[in-house]
């Protein structure tokens, strides 16, 4: 595809993340570091998963079974990673609070914690977009474009960009929900993120069926919007109920 189209596709998938990055994350160096580390962790999880599953995807069949298994295990693994990230974050929070004591500044505000969670989630989202989407795009510059036979309405890259955008949103905001759930012990929040991730992964399986993407992708966006709305509601609730105390 042409450079203009390629740039457009990349911005479609990563545009909101870019604006979020410039507006929120690049202002605070620590958030950039959080983003980079969570991207790295996601990459490592992807490498571990591919080590296990590489053999299976050489089957060119459109069978549901191996793919479903792949998604199941991958989502489970990545949710375990999320728990691990939470542990790491708790440790980091203690260190930061101790540091704040030493330089006699206040402890981390609640908005700080949420921003760190946002940066972590965005790391996951950006890693998804980059490894699942952008890395396929860049070798394809030049004349002609690529269509998938199961979803022939749009070029492959456009469909993929749309799916990537949904996933970026899901990853980014479910991390905020998950961290808030872990810190408050709210069961609903804690199970929300894995449930959403799992559902989203399974929904992409509909793309294996012919013309399945017509159903699958709008549903995927439904999930992304639910995640966004839930996150917004939860953040609003937390901020207003803690209005007096910022910790």
């Amino acid at each position: 595809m042409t450079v203009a189209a390629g740039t457009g596709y990349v911005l479609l998938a990563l545009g909101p993340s870019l604006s979020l990055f410039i507006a929120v994350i690049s202002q605070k160096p620590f958030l950039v570091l959080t983003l980079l580390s969570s991207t790295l962790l996601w990459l490592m999880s992807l490498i571990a998963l591919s080590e296990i599953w590489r053999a299976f995807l050489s089957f060119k069949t459109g069978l549901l079974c191996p793919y479903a298994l792949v998604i199941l295990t991958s989502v489970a693994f990545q949710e375990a990673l999320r728990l691990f990230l939470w542990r790491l974050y708790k440790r980091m929070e203690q260190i930061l609070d101790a540091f704040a004591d030493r330089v006699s500044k206040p402890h981390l505000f609640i908005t700080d914690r949420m921003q760190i969670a946002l940066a972590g989630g965005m790391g996951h989202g950006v890693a998804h977009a980059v490894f699942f989407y952008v890395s396929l795009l860049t070798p394809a510059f030049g004349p002609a474009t690529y269509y998938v036979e199961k979803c022939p309405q749009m070029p492959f890259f456009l469909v993929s960009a749309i799916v990537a955008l949904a996933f970026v949103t899901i990853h980014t905001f479910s991390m905020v929900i998950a961290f808030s759930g872990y810190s408050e012990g709210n069961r609903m929040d804690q199970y929300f993120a894995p449930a959403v991730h799992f559902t989203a992964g399974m929904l992409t399986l509909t793309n294996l069926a012919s013309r399945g993407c017509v159903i699958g992708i709008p549903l995927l966006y439904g999930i992304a919007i639910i995640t966004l709305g839930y996150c917004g509601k939860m953040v609003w609730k937390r901020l207003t109920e803690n209005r007096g105390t910022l910790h």
Partner: protein
Amino acid sequence: MSTGSILETIGQEIIGVMSPVSICMFLVVLLVYTVYNPSATSSAATTIRTAANLVYLESPSDSTSQKLEGAILNAVVFVVIITLVTFLLLLLYYYRFTNFLLYYTRFSVFMIFSAMGSSILISIIQRFNIPIDAVTFYVLLFNFTILGTISVFSNGVPIIVKQSNMVVLGIIVAAWFSRLPEWTTWVVLVALALYDLAAVLAPGGPLKLLVELASSRDEELPALVYESRPNVGRNSRVRDSSLGMLVTAGIGMNSDNNDNGGAVELQELLRNVGSDDVNETRERAHMVIEVGQNERRTNRDEIEEVREDVGETSPLIGDSYNSVNDVSSGGVENSNGENRALQGNERDAVGMEEMNSRGIKLGMGDFIFYSVLVGRAAMYDLMTVYACYLAIISGLGCTLILLAVCRHALPALPISIALGVMFYFLTRLLMEPFVVGASTNLVMF
């Protein structure tokens, strides 16, 4: 006292080093991908003979074992050459041929900008069919070279110009090194990482001796070093090296708040991170933080009253500093590069410590070899580039944290190169089939 959150200022110095490294890598990848695309130029294979392939010129038709042997031979010869040149440098420095070293470095930077830089510019012009005539090109090149050479060595030039020209230097040399054949590149990178480890940490290592010599004479090495001086505002209160304090806070937390345990060596860890020429006392950005050996509560009071005095600027307490060294001139005749990241030391005053928010120094060789790794990864596919970029950045971060803990010169290559090479091969062999297979079927998670 400002009530801003600590989140606003932590990690600034790490970002100050990671940004130029990222920019350098990005531009090298861009250059390699658009201009030196191997699929386009594989037929017209201009195998340049550099110091890195003196012994064995790789060609795609050799067998695997032949390539491996040849690459290892090349790498050994390269490392031997570098060791010899480093010892030569050490000898010259020991016998105080400092001026010679200075002039030689200036000359080599000039050659890099003019000769190697112009060849890259010409390839860019050819690739994109830019209409420019020879006279304009020479004038522009001349301007650019002179400005670059002057800004890299002088202290009167704005720091951003100096930093940008350092990055351009790194890009030029890295783009040249990326043209080495594939097997040779990987083996040379690994060999250099091992060499760096040995040269900086082993007792007889040339770089270690060099650093000790320089610090004992209280001088700076005539070398190419990137300094990431942060832009410190007027009202900067609590600032960096927050990295050192952060690490101590982490360590100190484990020793449960008792007086002796809590006295985790804040004093030793607060230090002058940066280059200090004796002439640079006019740089006034620093602050005073008092450190006591007591527990943190009493510290708080002392810090308060000291802070009132920070309005005026006081001259720096005399420093003894170490600096990174790197002399790098790649190219046809000779090439050598040493690299470390390192922090300077400063002696303590009674109960008071002066801290200079200068940032961290990173040798140019580090820039170059990180970018070579990423550039070589770019010649395969961009997925490997992203993976290697993340690996190198995290290796750099680990090295910086180690630096805050270890407080002496550390080699910056080994961890990053090891991670980078590992991630490259893992991505290329394992991850790519998996991910491409999944996403071309629109199955994602």
